[in-house]
C-alpha cells in the first residue's frame, strides 16, 4: 500500500510539473505542451512507466479492497452507538471513500486524455505534434468538467494529507524528529499538488 501509494505520489509531482506548462501564455503553452506530450508518447521508457503506473493504481485499489474486507472481518458486530469519529480525523477514517472518488476520476481522466492521445487520430499542430493542448483547453471549457476535476482534487488532497505521512509510518519512520519533518513535508506536498492541479482547470477555463 505504502509502496504503491508513494510511487503514485511521486508520479503526481512529475505529472504536475509537466502540466504546469499549461499555465504559460497561450501560444507558448501550446508549443511547449504539445512537444512535451509528443516526447512522452514517443519514449519507450515513459510507455513502460505508464503501464507500471496503471498497474500500481490497480494494485493500490485491489489492496484497498482487501484491507476493507479484513477490516470488516476484524470488526465483528457493529457498535449500536458509535462516537469513535471524535478521536481521529475524518479523512483518515475514509481513505477508501476518498480513494474511490479518485478512482472514478481516474477512469474519466484517462478516457479523455490518455485514451484520446494514444489510441485515436488527432489534429496536428504547426510542429507536427498531436495537438493535446487544444484537447485540454476545449475540455476545460465545460464548467461541469472543471467541477468534476475540482471535487476530485479535493478528495485527492484529503487522501494525500493522510496518505503521505501514513505511508512513512507504514514503512517504519518512527523517530519523533523526522516524523515531524514528514508531517510538515506532507502538508506542503499536499498543498502543492492539490493547489497546482486545482489551479490548472480554473486558469484554463478563465483564460482564452
Amino acid at each position, binding site marked *: 500500500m505504502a509502496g504503491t501509494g508513494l510511487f503514485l505520489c511521486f508520479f503526481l509531482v512529475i505529472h504536475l510539473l509537466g502540466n504546469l506548462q499549461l499555465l504559460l501564455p497561450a501560444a507558448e503553452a501550446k508549443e511547449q505542451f504539445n512537444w512535451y506530450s509528443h516526447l512522452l508518447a514517443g519514449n519507450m521508457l515513459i510507455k513502460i512507466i505508464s503501464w507500471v503506473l496503471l498497474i500500481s493504481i490497480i494494485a493500490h485499489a485491489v489492496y484497498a479492497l482487501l*484491507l476493507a474486507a479484513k*477490516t470488516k472481518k476484524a470488526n465483528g458486530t*457493529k457498535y*449500536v452507538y458509535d462516537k*469513535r469519529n471524535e*478521536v*481521529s*480525523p475524518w479523512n483518515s477514517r475514509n481513505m477508501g471513500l476518498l480513494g474511490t472518488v479518485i478512482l472514478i476520476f481516474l477512469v474519466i481522466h484517462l478516457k479523455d486524455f490518455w485514451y484520446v492521445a494514444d489510441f485515436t487520430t488527432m489534429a496536428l499542430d504547426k510542429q507536427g505534434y498531436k495537438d493535446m493542448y487544444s484537447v485540454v483547453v476545449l475540455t476545460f471549457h465545460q464548467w461541469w468538467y472543471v467541477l468534476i476535476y475540482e471535487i476530485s482534487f479535493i478528495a485527492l488532497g484529503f487522501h494525500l494529507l493522510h496518505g503521505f505521512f501514513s505511508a512513512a509510518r507504514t514503512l*517504519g519512520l518512527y523517530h*519523533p524528529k523526522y516524523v515531524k519533518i514528514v508531517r510538515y513535508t506532507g502538508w506542503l506536498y499536499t498543498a502543492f499538488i492539490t493547489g497546482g492541479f486545482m489551479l490548472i482547470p480554473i486558469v484554463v477555463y478563465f483564460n482564452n
Partner: protein
Amino acid sequence: MKIYLKIWRQDSPATPGAMKNYELDDVSQDMSFLEMMDLLNESLIQKSQRVVEFDHDCREGICGQCGMMINGRAHGPLTHTTTCQLHMRSFKDGDTIYIEPFRAAAFPIVRDLKVDRKAFDNIIQAGGFISASTGQTPEANGILISHAIAEAAFDAAACIGCGACVATCKNSSADLFTSAKITQLALLPQGKVERTERVIAMVDQMDAEGFGHCTNTEACEVECPQEISVLHIARMNYEYNKALIISH
C-alpha cells in the same frame, strides 16, 4: 442526579444481544463510573433480575481489566482514562449513557460487557518476552542503560493491556498494544538479541488472532489510558520490515 442507561445485554457468545434501558435516581457526582454500575446492580438484585456483568478488578487504572464503550467512546468521554477512573462528574443530571462491550472479532463477548482478551496473551506468548532463564542472571549494573532509553522503554512498557486501542480502532487493529511491547524490548540491550524473531512472531500472531490492519488513524493513542504513542507502531513496522529483509 438522575441517569438513564442503555446497556448491551447478551447472555452468551452464541445468543444475540440487545440494548436494554435502565434508570438510576440517586447517582452522586463523586461516584466512579463503576460505583454507578454497582448501584445499578444492587437495584437489579432488589428486583430479582440478573446483574449486568462487567469486568473490573483494581479500580485504580492499572490492571486493565475494566473497559467498556461508554457513549460510543472507549473508556468513555475522557481521553487517556480507564473506565474505573472515570467519575460521574463527567456526566450531567438527566443524561442518557450508552454502554456497550469493547467490540472486535478477536474479543468475543463472554456475557453482557465482559469480553475475552485472550488474544493479547497469545500475542505475548508468541514472543513478547526476553528469553532470560529464571534464577541465574548477570549483575544488573553490568548492563548500562542510559536514562533516556530506560525512560523510553518504560513509556512503552506502561501498557495495561486493556484493549481500548482495539475497541476504538475502525480497523480493530492491535498494533498499538503489540508495538508497545516490541518497542520496549527492542530498545533495551537485553531485548535486542531476539528482536528479529520476536517482531515476526508477534506480528504474525496478531494477524492470526484476527485483528485488523493499522491505517494510522491514531484514535488508539487518544483513548489509551497510558498514552502509549503511535510512533511505536511505526517502530514496529520498521522492525518488521527490517526483519523481513534480513531474516532468511
